């Protein structure tokens, strides 16, 4: 019972209304006099409270910006802003209600019948979207509240906090099982809370459960799916002040489904009028909220529950005008609210029609779990049978205590355009009859044609009546007609809850904040943040900044953060053996202190990754992988190691090592001020590595040259990242050193014609066609991909990766099409304006017959065709002299 001493206000459509603690949004609005809660999906008919249990679509509203919130199960809070949906200008006066006058133009399946051309749909769609539908999705990024996820485990999950669920939880809990109990209501007790004749809420059991440490109770949470391996999707509304909803991934060894039954409406003309309610809805208003839902009532019932409801009505001071059998009712009368019931014997005036409808087991979860639903004539319901192991049904959901409230299939179906079966999308008995007569007489095809059971209530209100109508019309039995399949999510789930919190992992290098202070313009590389280029006072555009960085590297010295490279530490006596097996190049004969480049191929000879491998000691190698392929390469190496018994141990040290590339003709001068290591080409040649201290920090220096200049890749402990970055820039000041970003690096390497695996190559690229034949050592007796590569080495290539120079100023985009003699002959993989050449240069895959030196190709640039020429060697320092200086 709502506590009348505690009152507060909330907003509805801008109006301030009073609510009491314990109220739901719906009960507060009802008490304030609201009777129309929604306008129907298609015809904009007024709809009022029906089930009050979150099972029907009749009270969906926008609450604090979230659309389609079921007002009847949402507790109202002080200051809450509630708005109506799908009506203009208001719920009580909806101009779009005029639509229902034209319902004759909207027969069942009218999309299929009227939108016979693509253009007609495109023309009509914007209007249909405005007129029909539910709430409007909120703008992204609005609102301070979050959706969140949580993970839980249970020995037993009990779904439903009614008497059966409570009893099951108690018994299992006493037996020592760890239990999570899920209930969708604000308080435990199920139907005992509002059906006074059924007994009292077992307060002692609830108290006992609450005192048991092995039992966790989650109220205001519903289970929307029971998936493989007993994974339960649970949606917990308003778990705390900072979250709208929490999606719980609940994994249970055993599930007890005690979801009980729900009541469904009868079908008669105008059965959707506000004031026509289910008996359990009326009982909820009376007993949970202390609301008198009318003054004079008619009960429609087939015996069952009529006495019980009559008692409740009288107790609430409501005059009982008549008790009618469903077959006696012709229609409800009234326009925006029920004013009476018309029968063969005339009209009875009333302002409340109470339907004691058929009770239906809420067995959707059991159906999803793999159980079957079998028709029982005796119970008048589809009952769950053949449940999988570790899933049990308890209480009324089993149907054990059900009685039939009507004959099924019905002897008579009131086929009428205003006799609604599906309240979600305005499907009437007449629509079903028409659908069946058009040939959709199987329950599953009828569902898809009419959209029956496909709305927000997911068939809860309409499934039984729909099957009944189908059975009646086709002359089949209920069992022969069968049920439609229950699939999760049921009930519906907000997309925000599925998406979860707005947290996306970000990988930051140890020098992240230093880059930020230097004006870095960031780019995303997977989860990594990398400086694309640095804004400086001396350059205006990206292109001029990149060119300044480029010139620093080519003419003086540049420094780039390459900490994102994957780094693997490989130890063990058989490390060389593993590398020989997995990489195409040979590593067992690499001398300690030397570095070698290689690619990694699969068994089909396709290049998967590339990188350098340094030998630090006899039994110690250091691998770098491309930024995005670290996990893959580590797993690939581990995979080929399984079962060999070799002494190899791979450790991912990516996060632990900061790495920079110091490059340029004056790189040596910069570095030698910080290290005692002899950097001369004689002592430290190209493709060598040394361990030495740099500015006091332990470092690994690799003399390699991705950008084509003398340079060192320096790896050092991540905690010194900013320190060493600053020391290197400081030491380079005398040489006007510049930090450079990914754009300049890409340009520099492109001039050197260095391939980026995964950018210039794809899932069809082998080393031969990519012009890297030297990297495959076919004289090794075996390695991954050798068999395929040995055949590719001899086969005529289909295509070749070639370099090209543009003839004019055009700069093609990566991916641009290549034409030879007007026919498509390939595509560009990378192209940049090259300051060295004064024109754009690039790499491209070109059909083998055209991939010869000097061939003129055409490239599509900005919708026109530009000419280019294929060149065989690097655009910059083809002999590689600068690398060895």
């Amino acid at each position: 019972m709502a506590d009348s001493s505690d009152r507060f206000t909330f907003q509805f459509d801008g109006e301030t209304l009073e609510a009491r603690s314990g109220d739901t949004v719906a009960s507060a609005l009802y008490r304030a006099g609201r009777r129309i809660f929604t306008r129907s999906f298609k015809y904009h008919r007024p709809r009022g409270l029906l089930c009050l249990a979150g099972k029907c679509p009749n009270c969906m509203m926008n609450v604090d910006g979230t659309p389609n919130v079921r007002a009847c199960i949402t507790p109202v809070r002080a200051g809450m802003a509630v708005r109506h949906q799908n009506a203009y200008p208001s719920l009580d006066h909806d101009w779009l209600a005029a639509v229902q006058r034209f319902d004759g133009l909207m027969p069942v399946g009218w999309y299929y019948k009227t939108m016979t051309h693509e253009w007609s749909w495109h023309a009509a769609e914007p209007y249909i979207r405005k007129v029909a539908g539910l709430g409007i999705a909120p703008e992204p990024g609005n609102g301070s509240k979050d959706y969140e996820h949580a993970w839980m485990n249970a020995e037993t999950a009990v779904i439903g906090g009614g008497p059966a669920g409570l009893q099951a939880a108690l018994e299992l809990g006493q037996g020592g099982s760890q239990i999570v109990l899920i209930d969708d209501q604000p308080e435990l007790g199920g139907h005992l809370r509002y059906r006074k004749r059924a007994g009292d809420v077992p307060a002692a059991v609830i108290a006992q459960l609450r005192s048991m440490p092995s039992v966790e109770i989650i109220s205001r949470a519903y289970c929307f799916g029971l998936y493989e391996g007993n994974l339960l999707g649970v949606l917990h509304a308003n778990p705390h002040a900072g979250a709208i909803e929490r999606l719980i991934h609940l994994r249970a060894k055993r599930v007890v489904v005690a979801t009980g039954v729900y009541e469904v409406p009868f079908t008669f003309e105008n059965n959707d009028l506000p004031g026509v309610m289910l008996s359990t809805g009326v009982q909820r208003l009376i007993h949970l909220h202390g609301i008198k839902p009318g003054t004079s009532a008619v009960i429609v019932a087939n015996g069952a529950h009529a006495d019980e409801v009559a008692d409740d009505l009288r107790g609430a001071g409501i005059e009982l005008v008549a008790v009618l059998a469903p077959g006696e009712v012709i229609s409800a009368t009234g326009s925006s609210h029920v004013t009476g019931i018309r029968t063969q014997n005339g009209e009875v005036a009333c302002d409340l029609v109470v339907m004691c409808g058929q009770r239906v087991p809420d067995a959707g979860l059991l159906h999803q779990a793999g159980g079957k639903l079998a028709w029982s004539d005796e119970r008048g319901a589809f009952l769950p049978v053949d449940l999988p192991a570790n899933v049990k049904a308890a209480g009324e959901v089993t149907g054990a205590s059900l009685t039939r409230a009507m004959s099924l299939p019905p002897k008579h179906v009131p086929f009428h355009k205003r006799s609604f079966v599906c309240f979600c999308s305005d499907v009437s008995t007449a629509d079903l009859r028409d659908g069946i007569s058009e040939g959709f007489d199987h329950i599953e095809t009828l569902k898809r044609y009419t959209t029956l059971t496909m709305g927000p209530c997911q068939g809860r209100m309409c499934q039984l009546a729909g099957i009944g109508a189908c059975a009646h019309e086709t002359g089949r039995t209920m069992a022969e007609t069968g049920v439609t399949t229950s699939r999760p999510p049921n009930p519906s789930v907000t997309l925000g809850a599925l998406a979860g919190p707005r947290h996306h992992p970000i990988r930051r290098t140890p020098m992240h904040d230093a880059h930020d202070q230097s004006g870095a313009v960031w780019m995303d590389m997977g989860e990594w943040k990398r400086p694309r280029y640095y804004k400086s006072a001396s350059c205006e555009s990206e292109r001029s900044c990149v060119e300044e960085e480029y010139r620093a590297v080519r003419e003086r010295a540049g420094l780039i953060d390459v900490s994102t490279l994957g780094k693997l530490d490989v130890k063990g006596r058989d490390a060389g053996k593993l590398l020989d097996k997995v990489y195409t190049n040979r590593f067992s004969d690499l001398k300690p202190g030397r570095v070698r480049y290689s690619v990694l191929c699969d068994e089909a000879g396709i290049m998967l990754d590339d990188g350098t491998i340094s030998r630090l000691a006899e039994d110690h190698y250091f691998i770098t992988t491309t930024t995005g392929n670290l996990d893959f390469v580590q797993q690939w190496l581990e995979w080929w190691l399984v079962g060999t018994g070799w002494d190899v141990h791979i450790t991912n040290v990516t996060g632990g090592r900061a790495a920079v590339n110091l490059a340029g003709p004056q790189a040596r001068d910069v570095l030698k001020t910080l290290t005692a290591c002899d950097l001369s080409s004689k002592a430290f040649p190209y493709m060598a590595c040394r361990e030495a201290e740099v500015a006091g920090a332990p470092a690994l220096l690799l003399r390699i040259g991705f950008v084509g200049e003398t340079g060192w890749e320096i790896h050092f402990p991540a905690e010194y990242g900013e320190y060493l970055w600053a020391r290197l820039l400081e030491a380079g000041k005398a040489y006007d050193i510049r930090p450079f970003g990914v754009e300049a690096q890409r340009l520099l390497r492109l001039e050197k014609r260095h391939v980026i695996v995964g950018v210039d190559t794809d899932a069809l690229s082998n080393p031969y066609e990519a012009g890297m034949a030297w990297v495959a050592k076919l004289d090794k007796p075996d390695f991954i991909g050798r068999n395929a590569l040995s055949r590719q080495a001899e086969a005529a290539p289909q295509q070749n990766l070639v370099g090209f120079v543009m003839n004019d100023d055009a700069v093609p985009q990566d991916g641009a099409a290549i034409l030879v003699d007007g026919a498509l002959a390939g595509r560009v993989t990378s192209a940049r304006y090259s300051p060295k050449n004064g024109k754009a240069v690039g790499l491209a895959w070109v059909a083998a017959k055209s991939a010869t030196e000097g061939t003129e190709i055409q490239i599509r640039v900005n919708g026109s065709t530009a000419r280019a020429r294929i060149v065989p060697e690097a655009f910059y320092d083809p002999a590689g002299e600068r690398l060895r200086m």
Partner: protein
Amino acid sequence: MSFLIPCPHCGHRSVYEFRFGGEVKARPQPAAAAAEWMEYTYTKANEAGVQKEWWFHRSGCRQWLQALRNTTTNEVVEAFFPE
């Protein structure tokens, strides 16, 4: 798809924690016939029933394991680290 795989090190874990590595197949000898290599590289048995598969426990112990999985029910009969 939300079945559990009994990782021999970490215990029962959701399949989402694992990377699928394909069917377990024997790699041919280097000198084997081209047809045998072709079969190994490109074809799959795709058994309707229990088959032996590679799985990598990406979000757990980061080990490759083999599992006997019924492809029609997703029941994992057994999972083990290969010797």
